[in-house]
């Protein structure tokens, strides 16, 4: 089951300029939440505040009742936050399958000694991880690339690889930063189908997206950021009808 995320009064500034200012955001377990907004609205900063790449100046980030805003990135990863970056941040020099298997690192129990001695408990765990990695490769449609060095995959497949890696870690909250940007329309449809499937399985997701059409069809709720502040929050229909949103961002293009 997915985790609940609660961001309260989160602010972060760079050189005196607020990138994110007093942002409140509550995502229920199993919800697919989209965060949209024009360029410079603070979407990526908010994303990094939750993932831990940036620290909040003030405010809190709470995952399932536990404050995580002071935790290091890897600790948040272990708590079940999976991240899919906009840029394909893969592990070059390792195969696609290995890339995905590394995603499960945060879930492993075996320590250095058991690993070095290849004790039975460790070997069972290794087998389970590999099986799960194959599953994740299949779900994201890149099974046939499994044995290729990750850096040789086409960009679309590298993006899918990142998603597979995140899924292999059994996340309870999945953060996706513009996962559809730069994808061809077939890939985009497949991604939308997969996200829908994950949502039905109860995974909590926070999706940052530029493409409004893409998120309006998928998201349970939509949060709109502008100049670092939340200007609207509601169902896709409510947000679409919101006059502030239309003025700030959507314009007449969305009907």
């Amino acid at each position, binding site marked *: 089951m997915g985790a609940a995320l609660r961001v309260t009064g989160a602010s972060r500034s760079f050189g005196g300029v607020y990138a994110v200012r007093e942002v409140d955001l509550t995502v229920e377990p199993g919800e697919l939440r989209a965060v949209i907004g024009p360029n410079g609205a603070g979407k990526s900063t908010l994303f990094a505040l939750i993932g831990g790449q940036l620290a909040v100046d003030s405010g809190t980030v709470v995952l399932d009742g536990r404050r995580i805003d002071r935790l290091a990135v*890897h600790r948040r990863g272990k708590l079940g936050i999976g991240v899919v970056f906009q840029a394909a*941040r*893969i592990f070059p020099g390792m195969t696609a399958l290995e890339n995905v298997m*590394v995603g499960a*690192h945060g879930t492993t129990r075996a320590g250095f000694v058991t*690993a070095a001695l290849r004790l039975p408990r460790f070997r069972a765990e290794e087998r389970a991880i590999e099986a799960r990695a194959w599953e994740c490769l299949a779900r994201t449609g890149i099974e046939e690339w499994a044995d290729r060095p990750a850096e040789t995959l086409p960009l679309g497949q590298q993006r899918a690889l990142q998603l597979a890696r995140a899924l292999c870690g059994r996340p309870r909250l999945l953060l996706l930063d513009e996962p559809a940007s730069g994808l061809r329309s077939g890939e985009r449809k497949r991604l939308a189908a997969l996200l829908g499937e994950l949502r039905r399985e109860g995974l909590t997701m926070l999706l940052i997206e530029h493409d409004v059409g893409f998120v309006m069809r998928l998201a349970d709720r939509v949060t709109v950021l502008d100049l670092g502040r939340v200007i609207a929050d509601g169902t896709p229909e409510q947000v679409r009808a919101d006059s502030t949103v239309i003025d700030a961002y959507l314009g007449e293009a969305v009907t």
Partner: protein
Amino acid sequence: MSDLIAYVVTGLGLGAGYALVGSGLVAIYRVTGVVNFAQGAFAVVAAMLTSTLLAAGLPHVLSETLAVVVAAGAGVLVGLIATGEPGAALIVTLGVGVFAYAVEIVLWGDQPRSFGGLPGVLTVGDARIQAHYLLILAVTVPVFAGLALFFGRTDLGKALTACASNRYAARVVGINVRRMGLLAFALGGALGGLAGVLTTPVQQVTFDSDVTLIVNGFAAAVLGGLTRPGVALAGGLLLGVAQTLIAGFGGGAYQLEVALLLMLTVMVIQATRAGSLVGATR
């Protein structure tokens, strides 16, 4: 002919030592991106400590094992210092290496030390070979097989590799990059220590033996772009054999120069092919 066999076996034994030092460099570089110039000191410390422990009456194997464990601990210490300040790591490891001289001289003096290894002499044809050289090989080869398995086939090994490949992404999947770096330093320390305790019975050790070890170890490791332990083993063995052959049939004074020349040649070739060193740090 008998000379040739003796030289080759001797060279393989020496080369195994270089390869172990080199693989320690590889383990550390692969994970942290740091070229650890204090690597030779691990071997010296472990060898000196073994001589002390043996003199104190501890049995073989136990003495050597303890020394390797201490070398691993020294590795963690160097790692703590070297990875604290990003960018300065290279100079820091050089400094630690020089500082280690002082510690070694205070603790063990500046005279060469050695201790007995595996006794016995084997006769192959009319070549007489110290049995200890075979022991060096018998330990080194499984260690390398284990390393390859560890890095290639285990979750922890993959996590270590992932740190070097993309630290940013490694953190995201829950890898404690700093802890992995220290683990790599411990592994590097243990491998360096192993090189020291294995090779000292056939060639004694002084506080500045680390220079020879680090130059040759680096030459071995650089063959594999500092990232492939298997190639470091091949490189080390090749280097060891080349040196003993040159020393045996030419003159013994040129051993270090051979290593330097080989290292430079490899680096020039790699640089002209767009450099695997650069490629590996990405």
